[in-house]
């Protein structure tokens, strides 16, 4: 496979000051006074214009005037005032933050990942709407990377998993709840309110108002207020329309957790103003801690990929996501396992399954125990025990089905491994789950 030119591609995603090419031949820690308060897009709301008139035309020509403006700010007081008026800490502040350096060291991030980018990963779009300074572009990349690595890890190691279980496994490995927990484990704390003067080592986001906080001190809780329907919400979800979604709909129309996608890229392409509307709503309403944490971890994944390459990104994924233990056998729920098993045996050409008593004790007592095995011909498929023959038979069928679905090949090479410079080997693809 052809090597991708990451450094060249990443130019469009990273902001000019934090491009990897600027840092390759440079020591990472520079003297603290070499700060550069640069905001290249003048979309950031700067109202502090005592002497210099800033024109809002969004051109890079303004950057120099802003820079000059910062450098000309004579006193500490004035600098602080400027800082407090920009929505997120400027990239130059990253080297002053002990918290950020500690996070970089604690996560053993590759040295090629600059502190400025780590600081940018911590800025949620709800804190700073400017996509040059928030983590939205990086988190889109990280979302796709996490999906790719997790799905191939799950699906190549357990090639027969049913679709629903696959979605549950994806959710368990890299779902928002897990990622929020990971963020807590990393020791990332949330700033009370985002702003330029805040330490860049904090996660910057605007928190959504708590459900039990009172509205203007009236004693009425926020969650008790009637939900005002916003017209820009778009089409109602399947659940709102009272529809149940099947596995095929989830596979084709959903994201990699099987959830419905509210806005697709197609929607944005048709109506580009929707993207700005959504961002604006997020900025007004705020996000939950879970959403902000999810964006941060995804952005960090994307940033590592851009700065340090595929190998470092995969190692990071392995160390923090794949290393978490997940018991796949607990994700199953069967309603009619005996029927499913007999369908499976008919499909695969085994003899039809028969339940046989392997051992029993206390049949006439109050607490009997039966051990039942399911056999196809002379081969035992599964074994289960229970306090009635029916229960034991049911559990034996469940055991047999799990034995089928949880098959794992001995040696697996995931597709991305081949991309990182290995020989590609096809993975097992078989008949799929039992459909009755």
């Amino acid at each position, binding site marked *: 496979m052809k090597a991708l030119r990451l450094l060249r591609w990443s130019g469009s995603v990273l902001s000019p000051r934090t491009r990897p090419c600027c840092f390759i031949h440079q020591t990472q820690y520079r003297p603290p006074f070499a700060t550069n308060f640069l905001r290249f897009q003048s979309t950031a709301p700067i109202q502090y214009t005592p002497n210099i008139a800033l024109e809002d035309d969004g051109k890079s020509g303004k950057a120099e005037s802003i820079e000059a403006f910062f450098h000309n700010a004579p006193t500490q007081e004035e600098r602080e005032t400027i800082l407090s008026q920009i929505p997120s800490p400027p990239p130059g502040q990253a080297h002053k933050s002990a918290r950020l350096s500690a996070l970089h060291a604690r996560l053993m991030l590759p040295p090629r990942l600059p502190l400025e980018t780590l600081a940018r990963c911590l800025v949620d779009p709800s804190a700073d709407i400017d996509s040059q300074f928030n983590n939205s572009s990086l988190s889109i990349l990280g979302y796709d990377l996490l999906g790719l690595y997790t799905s191939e890890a799950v699906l190549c190691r357990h090639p027969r998993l049913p679709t629903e279980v696959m979605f549950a496994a994806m959710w368990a490995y890299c779902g928002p709840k897990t990622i929020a927990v990971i963020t807590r484990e990393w020791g990332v704390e949330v700033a009370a309110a985002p702003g330029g003067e805040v330490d860049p080592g904090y996660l910057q986001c605007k928190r959504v108002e708590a459900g039990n906080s009172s509205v203007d001190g009236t004693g009425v809780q926020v969650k008790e207020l009637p939900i005002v329907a916003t017209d820009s919400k778009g089409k109602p979800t399947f659940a709102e329309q009272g529809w149940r979604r099947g596995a095929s709909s989830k596979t084709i129309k959903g994201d990699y957790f099987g959830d419905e996608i509210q806005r697709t890229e197609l929607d944005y392409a048709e109506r580009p103003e929707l993207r700005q509307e959504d961002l604006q709503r997020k900025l007004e309403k705020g996000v939950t801690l879970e959403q902000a944490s999810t964006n941060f971890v995804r952005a960090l994944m994307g940033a590592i990929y851009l700065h340090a390459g595929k190998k470092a990104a995969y190692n990071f994924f392995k160390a923090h996501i794949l290393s978490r233990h997940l018991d796949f*056998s607990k994700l199953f729920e069967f309603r009619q396992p005996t029927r499913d098993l007999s369908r499976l045996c008919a499909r695969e050409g085994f003899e039809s399954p028969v339940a046989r008593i392997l051992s029993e004790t206390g049949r006439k007592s109050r607490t009997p125990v039966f051990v039942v095995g399911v056999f196809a011909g002379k081969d035992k498929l599964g*074994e289960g025990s229970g306090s009635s023959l029916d229960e034991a038979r049911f559990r034996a069928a*469940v055991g047999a089905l799990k034995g089928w679905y*949880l098959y794992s090949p*001995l040696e697996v090479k995931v597709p991305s491994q081949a991309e990182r410079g290995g020989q590609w080997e096809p993975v097992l693809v*078989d008949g799929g789950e039992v459909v009755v």
Partner: protein
Amino acid sequence: MSVFLPRRPPANLPSLCPSFAGLISLTARRHESSARRTTKRLRTKPDPSFTSSIPESQINDHIVFNPPSSAPSPYHTPPVFLPPNDPRRQLLVQSHRHANPYEQTERRLPPIIKHHQPYEKKYHLREKEIEEIRRLRTEDPYTWSRAKLAVMYGCSPFFVGIIAPNEGKRAEEFKKVEEVKENWGRRRRYAREDRAKRRKMWGRDE
């Protein structure tokens, strides 16, 4: 004047039926005379898996592998379920310990729980008979029940339900069952609900 009322009925007290109590105690009591025989009986041989067939000189030089009996792990794929190119297939066939014990001709399979005749689908009903079934069932669903029609036409009641569903009767039957359920007391209702919950737990393997 107070009357003493025993908590247990007098017939249950062992002191009132000495002959029966004596029978019990005879089997359980140990005497000096029976001590030798009892100890001898208790002196059981160890399980063959704990003793080795290797000579006495090397007795301290081997590993005893005798795991306690436990439910099999769902991660152990049964040999039949392994794909044909999996190397474990070959290894299991060669293995002495994990080979299928029922492959030996003298080893009989354990008893079957339910003996039922294998059901062969006949596919013998034509359009005319199906129309007839539908007509009968719409005319009088109570006389012509699914079971009755199934016997008459030699098919399964399930098939009758598919070709001639009767929503009216179905709803009425449901209503009847619901009415019966209305009259249940707390204990019966809870017992049924718990039973359903336990059944769900079987499917989750809990």
